[in-house]
């Protein structure tokens, strides 16, 4: 699709001048063709290291229609003295006859240490009032996140990116107290959660939710957090009281005490296994076994999830549940979309994961 851009840039500028330039560019575009209309869905503030702005721009380009309507990139370079800015207004093509073309705005502000104390006064005039704002700081900078939370209703993070996964869970819990957290590590588990929920949804299978006695989650070596979140989800939804996990080789092992509603009050054995052969981040598979002898395994496979089910008589079958990978661009786009929604189950899941930390 052809794109058409309007650009403004300035060195040594001010937030007021940037904001005036934005308004002027929008007026110009509208004057060119009144069917150019600005998208008004969501602001995103991205606080990034300046040297990585290109990489972040590439990641955001991959989200396609899930692009925020106004993206404010605060590109940080410690020794920078001057505030430089570039405003781009992009339309994804020309308006069709009788149709319209959406405009999306990107504001890149380059700043340094000397501007950090005034961060709020720089960012505030540059977000669209009355639109929800999501904050993303992919390179850490949690002290700045604390400041910019004042302008944001949601925070986008990827717990997998944290070098130390225990810190990731603690941080997610802490941030959740102040804002709505959209965790890409959580979103990677959505298809798995949907399938597990659907598998136990037929009324004849629901009682078995109370009889789960074993959970194994297989994950990319750098995605322990994903496995913890999935285990935390099941624990929080099914009223399990998990204890701390213990590391043994490439595995984390532990038990959860199933609550009052469980059949026979049996405990649940938890095993989080690293899967070194997995090429992509996230989960490789999971296995759930119930006291009745039923077992369900789901694993990544070509064209979807490879399912293996064993019934209490020991009869096994395997099949593929179709589904396409969303890719990392799709996950990030989903993260932007989720910033407008509210999933009440993440916080209980991450808190349960916190309770499992070794």
């Amino acid at each position, binding site marked *: 699709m052809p794109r058409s851009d309007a650009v403004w840039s300035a060195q040594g500028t001010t937030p007021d001048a940037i904001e005036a330039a934005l308004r002027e560019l929008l007026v110009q575009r509208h004057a060119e063709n009144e069917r150019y*209309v*600005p*998208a*008004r*869905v*969501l602001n995103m503030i991205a606080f990034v290291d300046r040297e990585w702005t290109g990489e972040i721009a590439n990641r955001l380009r991959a989200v396609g229609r*899930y*692009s925020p*309507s106004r993206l404010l990139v605060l590109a940080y370079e410690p020794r920078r003295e001057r505030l430089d800015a570039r405003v781009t207004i992009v339309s994804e093509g020309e308006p069709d006859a*009788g*149709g*319209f073309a*959406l405009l999306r705005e990107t504001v890149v502000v380059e700043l340094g240490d000397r501007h950090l104390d005034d961060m709020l006064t720089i960012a505030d005039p540059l977000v669209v009032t009355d639109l929800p704002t999501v904050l993303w700081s992919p390179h850490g900078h949690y002290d700045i996140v604390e400041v910019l939370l004042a302008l944001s209703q949601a925070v986008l993070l990827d717990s997998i990116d944290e070098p130390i996964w225990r810190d990731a869970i603690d941080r997610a819990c802490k941030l959740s107290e102040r804002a709505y957290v959209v965790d890409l590590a959580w979103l990677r588990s*959505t*298809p798995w*959660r*949907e*399938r*597990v*929920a*659907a*598998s*136990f*949804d*037929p*009324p004849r299978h*629901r*009682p078995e*939710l*109370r009889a789960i006695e074993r959970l194994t989650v297989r994950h990319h070596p750098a995605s322990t957090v994903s496995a913890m979140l999935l285990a935390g989800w*099941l624990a*929080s*939804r*099914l*009223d399990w009281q998990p204890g701390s996990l213990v590391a043994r080789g490439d595995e984390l092992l532990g038990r959860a005490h199933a609550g*009052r*509603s469980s059949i026979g009050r049996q405990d649940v054995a938890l095993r989080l296994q690293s899967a070194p052969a997995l090429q992509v981040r996230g989960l490789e598979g999971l296995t759930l076994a119930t006291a009745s002898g039923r077992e369900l395994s789901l694993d990544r496979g*070509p*064209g*979807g*999830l490879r*399912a293996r*089910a064993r*019934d209490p008589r020991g*009869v096994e*079958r395997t099949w*593929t*549940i*179709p*589904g*396409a990978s969303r890719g990392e661009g799709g996950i990030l786009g989903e993260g*932007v*979309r989720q910033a*407008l*929604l509210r*999933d*009440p*189950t*993440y916080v*209980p899941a991450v808190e349960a994961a916190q309770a499992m930390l070794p």
Partner: protein
Amino acid sequence: LSVAVAAGRPTAPTEAENPLTEGLERLPPPPTALVIFGATGDLARRKLLPALYNLAHDGALPESFYLIGVARKEKAHEDYRAECEQAIRRFSRRTPDDDVLKALLENVKYVPGTFEEDSVYTELHRLLDEFEEQAGEPLNRAFYLATDPSFFGVIVGELGRSKLAQHAQAEVRVIIEKPFGTSLEEALELNRRVLAVFDETQVYRIDHYLGKETVQNMMAFRFANGMFEPLWNRNFIDYVQITAAEDIGIESRASYYDKSGALRDLIQNHMLQLLCHVAMEPPVSFTAEEVRNEKVKVLQAIPEPTPEEIPEMAVRAQYTKGHAGGEDVPGYLEEEGVPQDSITETYAALRVEVDNWRWAGVPFYLRTGKRLARKLTEVAVTLKPVPHLAFSQAGSLGVQPNQLVLTIQPNEGVSLSLVAKIPGTRMAIRPVNMEFLYGTSFLSQSPEAYERLITDAMRGDATLFTRNDEVEAQWRICDPIVEFWSSRQDRMAHYEAGSRGPEEAERLLREGHRWRAV
């Protein structure tokens, strides 16, 4: 989804609940075998198979999903799978992923035969049992009738006779495409035959308009915004106008269209459903039964037109040759496959009233047509004029009462015409538009109507499907007009292709009312 917790905090699961569904935006439907009758037809190829692929792509099909195609031509399972693949590659809204497509097609089978043949149903029985054996559990069954409507009754009867309409351990549903009959008599007979085999709760009558996000939005617009409800009645609304205009002709559908016509093709179903959305009372809840109860009340409040009233409240017309998209186009009677003496209308306009407390005296104008100036579906609600305009008439331009327009296509949105002061020293005024386009405020793409409807049917949610009493009430309104028109060959008006429609439509309008430009 069942809600087992407050604010996301879990409680102990009980047998009746599935606490894992909380927080999920969607839950794949239960294990299902879908049987498509008319599996090689246009609808299946263009809409149903691509919709199934896209559900598979999104991981939204049931955990165990099997598809059986039934059609007349003899062919092997493999050949049918190849046809499915071809249709999906051609008509899917996204480029298929080879692995996903392969996984979907793994569980596709084909049953050849005519719809009256016992052997078809015996084979269906065998395959469905085989699939259940393979799945290791009972499968819900959904029979999708995508055939010519003349087969609906036959297929349903055969499903009953062959004991396929019930299952001791699973749900069985039948999905019936439109048109549901071509007259009230046919609709009643079809309902009688369907309900002799299936319970009404098993029947899903498709009106794909109801699956459109835009139509569903009308309910959100009316019932989630407090500012409109106080005005939404006869005291403030002068008239309502519902338009479904198409710029295309009949294309290759002459054999269907010439038997149907504009009234039966669009007004009897889609447009009366739109009217219901505009006029219904707020339902107690958004369950299938509550929503449909309210809609049927609206239909029942529209009086059945008498032969004396019809010339005053209904206009029909045919397009003659003209211009569309800068090209010469033929008139309806010159279209390929249309009989020279056809009296099928390609344009229909009605004025109806909803005789209830809220709407008494408010005319609802409905119009639809082929080969009009442009493609447009909208609902325009015109408010009564202000009682006194205390502004200078000199210099004021085109002041009209406020109009609220809900555009369904092509650019879904809401527009409100207001009157504003023209900048300058004089107190002169003119109308301006306050416009809202849905596309500017949402990131997500609306799912295709058929993806939504197939999922809902597999899940057992009938909210977006038409109930038997709705269908019958719709026919009660349209049937007398169809009969009247077919008995009066001389009353056909004409309009030039590419125009705004026939002049005769003006006579339906009450004083001071006007058709909006198409």
